[in-house]
């Protein structure tokens, strides 16, 4: 029984690590601009679909992944430049609609370009499972957790130790004040979109070997990333990572012990309860000083 429990725990942590990457993407954009990017899930899908199309076209795996991540980053940049910036609005509703619209454009483009089918992507190493205390662990899961960990540590260093990262934090605290001391807040916004697109694409290409991907896979992944970010209190990087991992484990346990059919609903039931009981997240304070 213990080995079975461990199996579910590992599966949950694996998926949770990709939720954490998605949640970090939300957190980044939220910190830079105070907005929620509803196209985050489409970045995850776009990275995975582009990579699988390149592999299918005969490109070597690693360069396919690199091109897919670079391309998705470019799309994120373009989205900020051509959809978000021209709007010059601070209305939350308008910004939600803009990012939703941009997400639909990405989704439709992938549907036209790559069709409606499910696409597979090979993992980073062979897929012979490892044995951990009687539980099977796919090598890809180790890659996911390892790479996610490296990304989280790098982001941490970036926000706390580099001028550029500090500018982003400053913008999140007070946009006007940041502008007054000479920070290019528009640049920060564009950069945060590009970076969050990159994070989404990395999560996408890591997860696809485990789950398959399709043009419509982004919506659910993106929404769950948002739930994870909200768990940790929007705006906290640590919260986003803990929230992502927690959501993955809760989902996995629900599928195992309660109902496999309703595992997707758990995130949404929890988020509604969370908003009603603790609107600032489980780990978020009213204002987060350090990201």
């Amino acid at each position, binding site marked *: 029984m213990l080995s079975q429990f461990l199996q579910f725990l590992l599966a949950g942590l694996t998926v949770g690590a990709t939720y954490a990457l998605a949640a970090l993407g939300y957190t980044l954009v939220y910190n830079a601009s105070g907005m929620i990017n509803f196209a985050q899930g489409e970045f995850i899908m776009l990275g995975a679909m582009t990579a699988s199309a390149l592999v299918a076209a005969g490109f070597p795996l690693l360069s396919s992944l690199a091109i897919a991540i670079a391309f998705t980053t470019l799309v994120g940049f373009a989205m900020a430049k051509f959809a978000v910036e021209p709007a010059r*609005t601070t209305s939350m509703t308008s910004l939600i609609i803009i990012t939703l619209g941009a997400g639909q454009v990405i989704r439709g483009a992938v549907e036209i370009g790559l069709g409606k089918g499910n696409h597979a992507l090979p993992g980073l190493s062979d897929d012979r499972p490892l044995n951990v205390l009687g539980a099977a662990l796919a090598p890809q899961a180790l890659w996911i957790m390892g790479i996610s960990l490296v990304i989280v540590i790098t982001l941490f260093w970036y926000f706390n130790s580099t001028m550029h990262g500090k500018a982003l934090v400053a913008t999140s605290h007070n946009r006007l004040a940041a502008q007054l001391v000479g920070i290019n807040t528009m640049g920060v916004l564009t950069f945060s979109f590009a970076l969050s697109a990159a994070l989404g694409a990395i999560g996408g290409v890591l997860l696809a070997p485990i789950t398959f991907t399709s043009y419509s896979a982004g919506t659910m992944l993106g*929404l769950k990333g948002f739930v994870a970010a909200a768990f940790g209190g929007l705006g906290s990087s640590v919260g986003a990572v803990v929230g992502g991992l927690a959501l993955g484990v809760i989902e996995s346990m629900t599928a195992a012990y309660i109902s496999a059919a309703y595992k*997707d609903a758990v995130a949404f039931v929890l988020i509604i309860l969370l908003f009603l009981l603790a609107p600032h997240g489980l780990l978020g304070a009213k204002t987060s000083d350090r990201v």
Partner: protein
Amino acid sequence: MTISSRFAGIGLLAAGLAIFPLLGPNAFVYDLAIRTIINAVVVIGLNLLFGYTGQISLGHAGFLGLGTYASAVLATHAGWAPLVALGIGAAGTGLLAFLIARPILSLKGHHLAMATLGLGIIISIVLNNETQYTGGSDGMSVPAFAIGQWQLRGDRNWYLLVSALLLIAVWAATNLVHSPAGRALQAIHGSEVAARVAGIDVTSVKVKVFVLSAVVASVMGSLEGHYLEFATPDSAGFVRSILLMAMVIVGGMASIVGSLIGAVMLTVLPQALSAFQGGETIVFGIILVATMIFMPNGLVPTVRDRMARLQS
């Protein structure tokens, strides 16, 4: 807007709806018209909630789907009369909306967006998974709409029914908007604090309009199921919710004429583009982004402002 011009507008709409069958539309055009009108009625309800009161709802198709499936399941598995099933569906949806309205509408901004979105998704997950009742993702057939022995069949009859409902909806919404209650809605959109100070019971107004828009969506969902004689979980899905929202935004926030135009545009357009896969999704996305950039208030209010500026 004077009383007489209000009636003139509704008269014009009634005339247009009455003339349409005389143009000899074929089955395809009738079908498009019926689906457009069903959307328009739902969008008028949603506009009261979102356009006038400023409460975003990204899960509204959930209520529509509940209506569709109440009619489908109760009529198929329990053998109830369609009208009774429709009423039960509307009452159940209204009750659900009433129970969740207070806590959910206390949220703001993206918390509200996320909570309503989550609600819609939960509903569509339930419809997808309760396969023994709903047929799961394959959907299920819905019996034809009937009252007693009389069955509602044929394009023209359906068209007349939904047209009548549209006129009632436009008339009711117009009156509501110009009543003190309607001004209270718009005050809430402007500033909740100010509305509260002015003595408006903000929470109760928000709950009422939320329940009203949910019930309207449920009733139209029931009728849509009977009309198509089929129900799929897509009717409650995220994409449908966004589409309804887009109709409000593109046509014009806080504009009943805008709701009609938005429903026409976004029902007819995907049909025109359905020839190539994914094209409708791209165009739909571009319309959303472009509307927000160039006409943040939607088509009708923007045009109205331009006209006013030209005249002055």
